[in-house]
């Protein structure tokens, strides 16, 4: 008998962490295999489903960082600790940590793009011996849009952190300017062996990857993660297809040698 993958399971909200007015992390009860960069279909009966990437993984839970921008996510924000949401997943390939182990690692993330890569950052923040140098360039629109503030305070102790805002006043905590501004000055021992992950809005990813290539990074040492509308997560609904690639099955994480061939 074929398994019915469309029936979701209930998951309890264990904790709600508020980042901004419209972005909260919902810590959901979950036991099972899951990798950073994978996603769940989150749903509420009568409102529908939305694909949400995993922003944190722990014993008995996954974190889902959700922005209140649509019909489903608006309703999610009406749910509190102790309530349940329906989940399906995890789907997608996720980040494979072994690609980055023992190497100089640069992560460039923009806005909610920090969510899918947060698990990777946390892993290498906690396990410094598993990597060489580490630089995180994270960009947000303004001070009000910064996610994971507590994480950034912690990460600053453990890696080179450049937190930058599109506009506003420069402070000790953050700089002003686009993430791409900081790529030419990246301090690296050996750019030929350094690896990078880029996640964020399409234009930010395009310019960041170009910046890394200009800085001397090899294409095969860059990974990207794509945001698409995944209605099913199962390779059926067609919404996330690019060429012969289904982001939900083959991605959302791609080595840039593959990612660069994907023309929407």
């Amino acid at each position, binding site marked *: 008998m074929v398994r*019915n993958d469309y029936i979701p399971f209930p998951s309890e909200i264990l904790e709600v962490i508020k980042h901004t007015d419209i972005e909260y992390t919902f810590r959901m009860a979950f036991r099972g295999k899951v990798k950073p960069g994978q996603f769940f279909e989150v*749903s509420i009966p009568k409102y529908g489903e939305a694909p949400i990437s995993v922003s944190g993984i722990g014993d008995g839970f996954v974190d889902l960082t959700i922005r209140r921008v649509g019909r489903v996510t608006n309703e999610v924000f009406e749910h509190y600790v102790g309530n349940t949401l329906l989940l399906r997943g995890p789907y997608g390939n996720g980040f494979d940590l072994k690609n980055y182990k023992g190497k100089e690692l640069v992560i460039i993330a923009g806005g909610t793009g920090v969510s899918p890569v947060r698990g990777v950052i946390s892993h290498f923040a906690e396990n410094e011996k598993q990597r060489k140098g580490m630089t995180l360039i994270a960009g947000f629109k303004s001070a009000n849009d910064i996610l994971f503030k507590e994480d950034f305070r912690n990460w600053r102790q453990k890696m080179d952190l450049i937190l930058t805002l599109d506009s506003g006043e420069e402070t000790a905590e953050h700089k002003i300017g686009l993430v791409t501004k900081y790529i030419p000055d990246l301090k690296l021992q050996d750019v030929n062996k350094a690896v990078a992950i880029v996640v964020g809005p399409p234009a930010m990813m395009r310019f960041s990857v170009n910046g890394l290539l200009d800085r001397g990074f090899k294409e095969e040492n860059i990974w990207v993660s794509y945001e698409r*509308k995944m209605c099913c997560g199962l390779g*059926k609904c067609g919404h996330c297809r690019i060429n012969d690639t*289904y982001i939900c099955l083959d991605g959302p994480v791609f080595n840039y040698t593959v990612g660069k061939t994907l*023309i929407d």
Partner: protein
Amino acid sequence: MGFHVNESQFDAWLTEQRKTYDIYAPMRYAGGNTFSDVDCIRYGKVSSISEIVFDKKSEYSFKEVLSPISQTLFFFTENEKKEADPPKKGAIIFLRSCDLHALKRLDDMYLRNGPEDYYYKRIRDNIKIVLIGCKQSFENCFCVSMGTNISENYDMSVNAQGSTYAINCKDNAWNQFFLDLGASRHLVVPDQVHENPVKVHIPENLTPDVARASMWEQYNKRCINCGRCNFVCPSCTCFAMQDIHYCDNANVGERRRVWSSCMVDKFTDVAGGGSYRKKNGERMRFKVLHKVYSHKKRHGCHMCVGCGRCDDICPEYISFSHCVNQLENAMKEVST
């Protein structure tokens, strides 16, 4: 075995089959077209061979039997979820050779692209196929170019010859039924089309680089992104999830999947206002290359089966086959 049967003998077989199967075939819906006083030929449940339209191409395909336009997946009542029941009966589907090839494309998507689809599989496992022979090509057909003009994997074929139906049957129980009826034995081969007025040529050297060609720009203005080409296509499978709740009781509702179209607005919208392929020309390119490039790369055969329904239905007279025939020059353009 081959037989020649008359209408009443065929109807006797249909009556027998209807005990265990719903019979789906192209039917005439009088006045049912988009335009007033025009009939629509589309699939429906038939009980007599006289209801089946043999002399016209159906405007919509058989795919709605396996992938309904709106399909309830499950119902929710407070915290309970109840899976929607499968159809009570299996299905016998009357279709033409191009559509039988399209069935393989549906299988590619629902059974081989990711995990097997529960809802598709439970219908798919209970269907039988009756191939309708094609005596001649219809307007806009290009099955010969796509290699879909001949099919072997049917349970029975039928050539309509006036009041006589020539059938080639591969099902033992059905053969016995016709023998018991006293149907006359004949050698029968399904009618096949060997040449279409419309021919397409898909260049061997086609690559996604063709996206940069100028040919797609013409569709920015010509196409009105209505999505009809997707809905009539026998191989288009895209859907979106949809929740509804009942007006009388907001605690009760259902989750459905409904057809969607890569040509229509909002198909790619992501949270926060992002979307991809905003221009209609880009959408046309995305669809056309799926049909004659991307699907083959992933599943070994072109998705397009050359039925020409997209050309038949387009309100802007955009021709898919004509578009495909521009690809060769477009490749030259992007290669230089």
